């Protein structure tokens, strides 16, 4: 599973980076979205993959750390998701403002290339 997981991160990162380097603001925002998926998965993966070990303490497993997934990366991802959402929203509005003021959706604020 780790291999598939890593591959997924790689594909998301690659697609995100590709889009990030594109000239249109919409491409960039999509790139940021994909990258944020990749980064969230990356952070999450730092706690190692664990199937069926939801970190919610139950009577059966008691508080044995070995029986639960590492909660810290999960908490970090939660924060990262929220911050990612916030910044996506902000970037969207800025790209709209840029589009409104400059008349183009090129990241440079002017048409430079096809």
């Amino acid at each position, binding site marked *: 599973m780790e291999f598939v997981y890593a591959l997924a991160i790689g594909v998301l990162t690659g697609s995100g980076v590709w889009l*990030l380097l594109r000239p249109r603001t919409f491409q960039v925002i999509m790139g940021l979205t994909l990258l944020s998926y990749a980064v969230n998965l990356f952070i999450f993966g730092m706690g190692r993959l664990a199937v069926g070990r939801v970190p919610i303490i139950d009577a059966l497993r008691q508080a044995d750390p070995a029986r639960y997934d590492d909660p810290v990366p999960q908490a*970090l991802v939660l924060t990262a998701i929220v911050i990612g959402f916030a910044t996506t929203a902000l*970037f969207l509005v800025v790209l709209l403002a840029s589009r409104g003021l400059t008349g183009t959706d090129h990241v*440079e604020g002017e048409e430079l290339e096809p």
Partner: protein
Amino acid sequence: MTDWLPHLPVLPVVIPLVAGAAMLLLAEARRAERTVMALAATLANLVVAVMLVRMAGGALPGLWPDGVAAYRLGGWQPPFGIVMVADALSAALLLLNAVLALAALAYALARWKRMGPHFQSLFQFIVMGINGAFLAGDLFNLFVFVEVLLASSYGLALHGSGVLRIKAGLHYIVVNLAGSFVFLIGVSLIYGTSGTLNMADLALRVPRLQDGDRVLFEAGAAILGVAFLLKAGAWPLNFWLPSTYGAAAPPVAALFSIMTKVGVYALLRVGSLLGAAPLPDGGAPAPFSEPWLFGIGLATLLLGTAGMLATRQPQRLVAYCVITSAGTLLAAFGLGGAPMKSAALFYLASSVLATGAFFMLSEMVGRTRPAGAEVEEEEPLDAEAPLDPSMPDEDVGIVIPAAMAFLGMGFVACALLVTGLPPLSGFVAKFLLLSATLDIVPSAAPIETWPPAIGVLWAAVLGSSLVSVIALCKMGVRLFWNSGEIVTPRLYALEAMPVAGLLLLSVALAAGVGPAMDYLDRAGRDLSAPQIYIEAVLGKDVPTDLTDIAGGGR
């Protein structure tokens, strides 16, 4: 009432947070109340910062005898809980931020009619973010506060809108968003290999890492370092800076001048802790290691200086000053050694005051131009014949109105600070920097045996000073003495005061270099030997009054 002193380290975050939030409860029309709140919060912030500086100097031995205050949020024992740490370095930077914030706020208040919605709240939040970043003792918490300050800086950079600002803001946001991803990858990789986020704990764990983990850890640290370099405005990751800082509203830009220092601080702090127990192959991971910092710093310095010379817009020039100062700092830190660090910290303080004042001043100066007028180029060289004897040496000068005189003198003062000419603190800073390099070489060692870096730094520091003189002279002449139309600007005392205040502070800094350096020497020493920091965060030796804060768990 509860005793608030034990909570001193968290107040720089809580005060602006509460103030910024409370202001939102007021309707937009109630400016007076908002202003009072903003001023009160900023002043309180200043008081707290002063207290923390005094604490770091050992003024609160009952609570923090070592001068390092570790505040355990939620009462959780580090490394599990989040800890905020105020030591000499953090406290100094907090004070700097508080001073700058007060000045910028005062400046902004003078023209509050121009403020967009929620300016005041965003302003408090950026102060909170910067303070938090300086206090963070936990890598992820550092990330969060960097995000707080970035998010508010996005808002403030775009404040007032306009094509230039939007274009610059767009780049700024995208680059920093990408930078945040890099930051996250770095932090999480560090967590994944070391199992901790607490910076002090990290310092203890790094030496015990297994080989495989160490390689990955170093990769993570290196990635993290790149994120810090981006925030620090280091070449080649700083191209967003001139446009953004050059286009931002001046009080905002003034506050931004300390924002790049967050990156520098993070590099220093994390680098110091990672260097606490050097890796077997020597030194901290790449971006934290001294040769890298030195090289990057030099390149940054070069770019900043070239930018100062090439730009024709005053505020952009100041933005390049910020880059120059970042470059000088990185190069200086890259040279290593505690004396160098304290000298560089002095330089940091001086340059932050300088660029802060300069940003605000540059806007006032900009008002001398009729709306829409460009700063024009001087006439071609050949147009003027040297020593034209037919040009009578009897002429009538131009009366300079008081406002212009103030601006002119302010410009000169800022230029002196930036270039490092006497008598302001910029000169003292350069003196200290150069003087500290001589501490590195053994006395009486022939020049040929000096590390080449020292010569390079000398050449860079002196050369960039000279080029700055040329650049600022050119800009000053263009701004104040050009033949074009000059409108005597309307200045408000409230605008002039912060600029004058910051400049006076720099005078005070120059005059008080003795005590300032006594203090910064401690900061530099602590950076070079972070055991005190680590012990204060994790250690056993905790003040008795604060058993709750100290005691692990509940």
